[in-house]
């Protein structure tokens, strides 16, 4: 059991990274990676919301199956996630103003993060139980955080280099991501010893 969980943890955080291997959450990855500080904020907010979303959608899916309306999955999940983000925002504002200040502006942006819905759907598709689903979502979000912080570091350095006009902005960001994805592919043949 534990080794299976560790395997999920490492595989989804590094070998099968959301950004570099699954193309989920590319929009915030490219949009909120101008500095390491904002990237860290976004990463933490994603970890928080993704784990919560996976716990809730696990139970929502159980309800949907119970009432025989599994085809409403997409509709139900997106509404639950949107409501969750709103609620988390309101609750954080009241309960933990410090955390709210740190995560606040990134929270509404997460509704448009396709990784949150994507990972919730994938966890159901993979038939994960509750614990596996939590580990899976945490690891994936941690992988996202790792990717966005690394990328923000590269981007901060990029400000000092002379980039051709046509390449400035999105093109150079995408090519940099491509090269980083190439580096992460080095993990592809890796086998865990258990």
């Amino acid at each position, binding site marked *: 059991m534990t080794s299976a969980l560790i395997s999920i943890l490492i595989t989804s955080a590094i070998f099968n990274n959301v950004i*570099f*291997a*699954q*193309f*989920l*959450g*590319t*929009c915030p990855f*490219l949009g909120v990676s101008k500095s390491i500080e904002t990237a860290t904020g976004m990463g933490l907010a994603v970890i928080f919301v993704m784990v919560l979303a996976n716990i809730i959608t696990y139970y929502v899916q159980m309800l949907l199956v119970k009432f025989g309306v599994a*085809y*409403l*999955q*997409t*509709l139900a999940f*997106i*509404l639950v996630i*949107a409501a969750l983000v709103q609620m988390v925002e309101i609750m954080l504002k009241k309960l933990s103003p410090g955390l709210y200040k740190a995560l606040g502006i990134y929270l509404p942006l997460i509704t*448009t*993060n*396709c990784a949150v*819905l*994507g990972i919730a*759907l*994938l966890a159901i*598709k993979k038939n994960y139980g509750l614990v596996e689903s939590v580990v899976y979502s945490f690891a994936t979000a941690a992988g996202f955080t790792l990717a966005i912080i690394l990328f923000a570091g590269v981007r901060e350095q990029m400000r000092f280099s002379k980039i*051709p*006009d*046509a*390449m400035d902005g*999105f*093109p*150079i*960001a*995408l*090519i940099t*991501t*491509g*090269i980083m*994805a*190439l580096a992460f*592919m080095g993990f592809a043949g890796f086998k865990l010893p258990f």
Partner: protein
Amino acid sequence: MGLDNLKKELYRGVVTENPTFRIVLGMCPTLATTTSVQNALGMGISVIAVLTCSNIAISMLRNVIPNKVRIPAFVVVIATFVTVVDLLIAAFIPPLYEALGIFIPLIVVNCIILGRAEAYAAKNEVLPSAIDGLVMGIGFTCSLALIGSIREFLSAGTLLGYTVVPFTHKFILMTLAPGAFITLGLTLALINFLQSKEN
């Protein structure tokens, strides 16, 4: 609306306001579903269907939906059409369903669709909204097909499954993640370059 106007709209959707290359929205499906022209077209046509239908429905409902809850209402409308498309593809084109996988339900969070609902369909009559959805969808499909053909050609020397140049060594990288990022980055750079020449 005359034919001339329609042509102008089409030019707007495909060139001047191309959702992928100009507004840079909806990156995830652009990267994930362009391993071949066939997958790219499948994704593009699904988006055209959802975008046109949701624009029509939202334009019809625009005076009924209270302003404060418009975003959740739009999302429900979009999610409904996405579910319809998802079930149709699963029933009639199982290989495409396998290839696109999770990215069909994820059309629901594609920024292009909510973006058009908010920016256009919520303010305009039904027919112009339908046309806007159609041309924006076609613009999206064209860019997916372009990236898809570059990647398919470079990786296997084929287009739509037909051999164009029989490569002896396949450029596998193009079908993988780095190939997607680099192809899209270079295409965007080329478009920026051509545009700066034009001005």
